[in-house]
């Protein structure tokens, strides 16, 4: 921390503690985004984010065209769903998502002429994205368009974006922070977007800032991505968008840590970034906002990374939402013989799963496939109170005590040590010499505390 100063910004460019897992990005960082051919079917879960499922507005047997709304998000914290391919709606099915949820999903079978997906990707890269003239857009119109386009956070948490950027009189937003950190090992989809299509990001940033009426706009990138930084700086020339280069550390992309690093403010416990006057959004989400406002295209496709030593050919792919993960894995040459763990997301916080028939959802940032050698071993030994977890926790907690409280079912001790402040980033489990599953214990501890408070 200390010596690393961030020129032009209040923060220091880093946050206390954190860990440095090997980033392994070389496996996929230099692979240009490939476009996945149109699949035969897509499966669209009606709920792909936090909040309320959308209401399906097409019936089985109906023909839909590309981009047609097939599910309407009627509640406030809900997002609409759009068809990524042209075809016929089939009967709904139940799907098991990697995060463990079992949900109803709409299926569409491809039928008729399809919009070539290569065209969609080229559109993202080569359009002359406007960098000014945004005062023509009213903030609430931008928010409404975001809601109509079904945009949710594409960084992983998938929170409906229109809720996040809704203008609010009680919580004024000063700074819009655009998260291009991508601190998880292996993942490189955001990086490729920044290198190949930086202009769409700048346009989206300006539009989103107009929606929240933010004065400052900062795109944050870790210092292990010099090419992305250069491309973004070039794209943001002559605009008010600033580029902040932050220290490469895990979990730099976590919103509390990023806001601390760049703006120098702490988001209050139990609060939102808006409480600190900041709105944080992922680069891909911002790019999707630009496409929705300028080109009237809803969220139907995204870039994901398939990487790890357990996949034959690591790639960054532009995929339609709803394509099955099995097709994606096959597109990358299939699993290697010593593949041991399939993870939706990155290895630090991703969900491991085994059912590859699950679809790509809006929140899927990629697949990481680890081999037997890389995967964490199961044997735990005794905690020797070495304190490495305390030195690693980016939230300043004492993970060993939290694990103890969970193991011995002591919710009061857990509350005393602020168990709810834990963001489950995995830094403590990562460094533990005894290989304790601290995050798993903390999850149990939180559940125990909830149950105890409800008694």
């Amino acid at each position: 921390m200390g010596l690393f100063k961030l020129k032009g910004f209040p923060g220091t460019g880093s946050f206390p503690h954190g860990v440095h897992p090997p980033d392994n990005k070389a496996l996929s960082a230099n692979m240009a985004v490939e476009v996945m051919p149109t699949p035969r079917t897509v499966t669209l879960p009606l709920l792909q984010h936090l909040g309320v499922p959308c209401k399906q507005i097409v019936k089985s047997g109906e023909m839909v065209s590309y981009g047609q709304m097939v599910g309407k998000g009627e509640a406030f914290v809900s997002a609409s769903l759009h068809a990524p391919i042209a075809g016929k709606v089939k009967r709904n099915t139940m799907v098991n998502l990697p995060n463990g949820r079992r949900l109803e999903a709409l299926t569409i079978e491809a039928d008729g002429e399809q919009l070539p997906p290569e065209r969609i990707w080229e559109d993202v890269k080569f359009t002359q994205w406007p960098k000014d003239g945004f005062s023509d857009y009213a903030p609430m119109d931008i928010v409404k368009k975001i809601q109509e386009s079904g945009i949710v956070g594409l960084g992983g948490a998938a929170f409906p974006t229109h809720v996040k950027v809704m203008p609010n009189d009680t919580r004024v937003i000063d700074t819009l922070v655009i998260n291009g950190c991508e601190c998880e090992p292996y993942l490189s989809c955001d990086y490729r977007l920044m290198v190949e299509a930086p202009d769409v990001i700048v346009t989206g940033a300006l539009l989103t800032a107009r929606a929240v009426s933010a004065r400052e706009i900062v795109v944050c990138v870790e210092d292990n991505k010099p090419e992305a930084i250069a491309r973004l700086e070039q794209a943001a020339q002559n605009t008010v968008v600033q580029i902040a280069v932050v220290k490469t550390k895990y979990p730099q992309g976590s919103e509390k840590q990023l806001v601390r690093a760049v703006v120098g403010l702490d988001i209050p416990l139990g609060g939102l970034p808006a409480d600190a006057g900041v709105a944080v959004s992922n680069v891909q989400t911002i790019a999707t906002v630009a496409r929705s406002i300028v080109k009237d295209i809803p969220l139907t496709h995204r870039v994901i990374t398939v990487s790890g030593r357990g996949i034959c050919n690591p790639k960054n792919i532009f995929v339609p939402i709803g394509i099955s993960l099995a097709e994606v894995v096959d597109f990358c040459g299939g699993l290697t013989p010593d593949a041991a763990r399939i993870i939706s997301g990155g290895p630090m916080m991703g969900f491991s799963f085994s059912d590859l028939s699950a679809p790509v959802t809006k929140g899927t940032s990629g697949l990481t496939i680890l081999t037997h050698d890389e995967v964490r071993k199961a044997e735990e030994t005794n905690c020797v109170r070495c304190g490495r977890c305390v030195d690693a926790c980016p939230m300043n907690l004492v993970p060993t005590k939290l694990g103890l409280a969970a193991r011995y079912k002591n919710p009061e001790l857990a509350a005393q040590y602020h168990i709810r402040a834990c963001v489950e980033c995995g830094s403590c489990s990562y460094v533990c010499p005894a290989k304790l599953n601290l995050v798993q214990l903390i999850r149990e501890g939180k559940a125990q505390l909830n149950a105890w408070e409800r008694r």
Partner: protein
Amino acid sequence: MNSAMSFDDRPGRKPPFISVAGSPHISDNRAGTRRMMVDVILGLSPAIIVSLYLFQFYALKQILVCVVACLAAEYLFVRMRGNAFTLKDCSAMVTGIILGLSMPGSAPWFVGALASFVGIGIGKIVFGGVGMNIFNPAMVGRAFVMIAFAQLMGAGAYENVTGLVDAVSGATPLSALKFNGVETGIAPLFLGVTNGSVGEVSALACILGGLYLIYRKTASWQIPASILITVALIAGITDLAGGYQGLFLLHHLFAGALMFGAFFIATDPVTSPLTSKGKMIFGVGTGCLIMVIRLFSGYPEGVMFAVLIMNAMTPLINSWTIPKPMGQQKEA
């Protein structure tokens, strides 16, 4: 390599299954409890080598007796509790080496053996094994025999070694200073050509080994730093008050078990606080107690009891120093 390979062709013949588990899915391969113990043994090796060179057979006897007895004690007691074999993690060996290095050369074999059994049994296993103890096991064992066999472990015992150079068979520097007012030169104290427990004599060896441990992050730097600074401050004040012109201060820094205790005994992670602030408080407390015992009590050396008393304070220090989570508002 492609996924169409049959099971028999797979290189390495690893089991062909996909497993699921909670996140995170990777861990830092450089860290490991056994690796930490091996580092401690490596850090102790300068002190071991100096002790073998100066005390020869006496050092060898103490170290061997204590290591063997610690391993035997751990094996026996763990079996009695019906638990799995735990000698693999080397923690008993580390306790044995530290205990052996803190014995006077002339102590009979049964003293070292008894110290080991008491240290491992009452200091560690009874609390639940590795990571569960409150007191430093080596110090528990040593305190027990110190009091039970006062003559065999007291000041006179250090002078009972025969066949060695005079410097290492006279009175120990601290007892010479306390009881006879005799000062030892600073250079012999620093290098170790003086009498004392077989491992503690050479400040240089302890510092070198200790710095290695700090570099490897196996020992925290806060504890040795705060102990040494506190001792230096208190000895410095006494030095100024008595007009010793710095000799008293350096004497106390380099003589006795201070260096050995500061780097190898007080830094035991199980029995010291978790947070940085807690470690500093622990070190300051240990330093104060060391000097109080050295200056005002009947014992010439205070490290052992100081560490044991501060070990008892560790849970309290931990609850005093619960860190504030990021984003917690100040109390209105």
